[in-house]
């Protein structure tokens, strides 16, 4: 009887651990890069070997998507065990190098979690990273863009620094301890799912 209940407990544990299938290694997406950062120095993806990296493309002049996503990630970090937490790195890649300086990014991200790192560099370098991570073409109303985002200029507000919006990938790239893209989270991915996936990746 006692053995049976132990079997049930162990089966239950295995079941909950396998609630989400292991993330596959995605081929053709991702790769190393080197960009200026909110730390005031160049950051390489290889700096984070041994950590799970969660990478998001966004911009700070963004009222909803970016702060909601950063708040979601901040809450995720709070759920993790301290040992796991120190092995998870959130990277925020700014697609708005016109407005997002390293200092501005640093203040912005520190508000959500002091461990978050912002990456910002010249437009062509950011474009190159964006292309590496998301090579699909996106058709908008009257144009075709080849990169992950497109600057949308609103009529009459072209000279206004708040007068534009971006359409950008909704993905939060999940990279394993070897820097390989393993899948994506989204702004609405439940914390329990994110936590479970991260814990699995950290055990590899």
């Amino acid at each position, binding site marked *: 009887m006692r053995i049976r209940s132990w079997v049930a407990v162990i089966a239950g544990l295995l079941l909950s651990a396998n609630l989400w299938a292991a993330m596959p290694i995605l081929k053709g997406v991702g790769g190393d890069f080197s960009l200026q950062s909110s730390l005031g120095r160049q950051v390489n993806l290889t700096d984070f070997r041994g950590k799970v990296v969660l990478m998001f493309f966004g911009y700070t002049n963004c009222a*909803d998507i970016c702060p*909601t996503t950063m708040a979601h990630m901040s809450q995720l970090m709070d759920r993790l065990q301290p040992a796991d937490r120190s092995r998870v790195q959130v990277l925020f890649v700014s697609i708005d190098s016109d407005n997002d300086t390293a200092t*501005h990014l640093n203040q912005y991200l520190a508000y959500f979690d002091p461990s978050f790192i912002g990456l910002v560099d010249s437009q062509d370098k950011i474009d190159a990273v964006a292309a590496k991570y998301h090579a*699909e073409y996106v058709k908008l109303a009257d144009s075709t863009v080849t990169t992950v985002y497109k600057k949308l200029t609103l009529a009459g507000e072209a000279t206004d*620094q*708040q007068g534009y919006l971006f359409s950008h990938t*909704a*993905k939060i790239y999940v990279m394993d301890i070897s820097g390989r893209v393993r899948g994506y989270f989204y*702004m609405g991915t439940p914390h329990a799912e994110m936590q479970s996936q991260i814990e699995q990746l950290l055990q590899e």
Partner: protein
Amino acid sequence: MKCKLLLASALVSVLIGTVQAAPLVVSEPWIRAMPSTSRVIPIFFKLHNKSVEDRALVAIKSSRGDVAIHETVAADGMMKMQPIEVLTISAGQHVMLKPGGYHGMMSHFTEGVPQEGDLVLVTLVYANGEEQDVHIEVVRKMNTGMAMSSLATHGS
């Protein structure tokens, strides 16, 4: 509990009834606290149209900055926020302005970025010319119900 609720809603109806005939009830208002260096902050609330006519929110005004009505849209793996001219609240229905969905975007701050704890006066402007003042507190929230959650379908 039910009695209290009924009493409260009756009281609210009476109070609003003296101001306007067909009330739109604002509830759960909040502004996300953001770093003092932010150039934009979002405004959220729930608008319940208790009248028998459709109503339309056409603008949000505030002396603290410009406010535009925006909508967050996700499609084909991309996300964007776009301005909307008119936000219709059908008769008897409610509309949520919440993270990942409709929201007010405040920018061009006149007295700096509203900070946590501030009460910001905003005026909701409707298509029929009616205006409604709301005081909204700036709060620091990490845990929020997002548009893709069940909140979007929560009935009244």
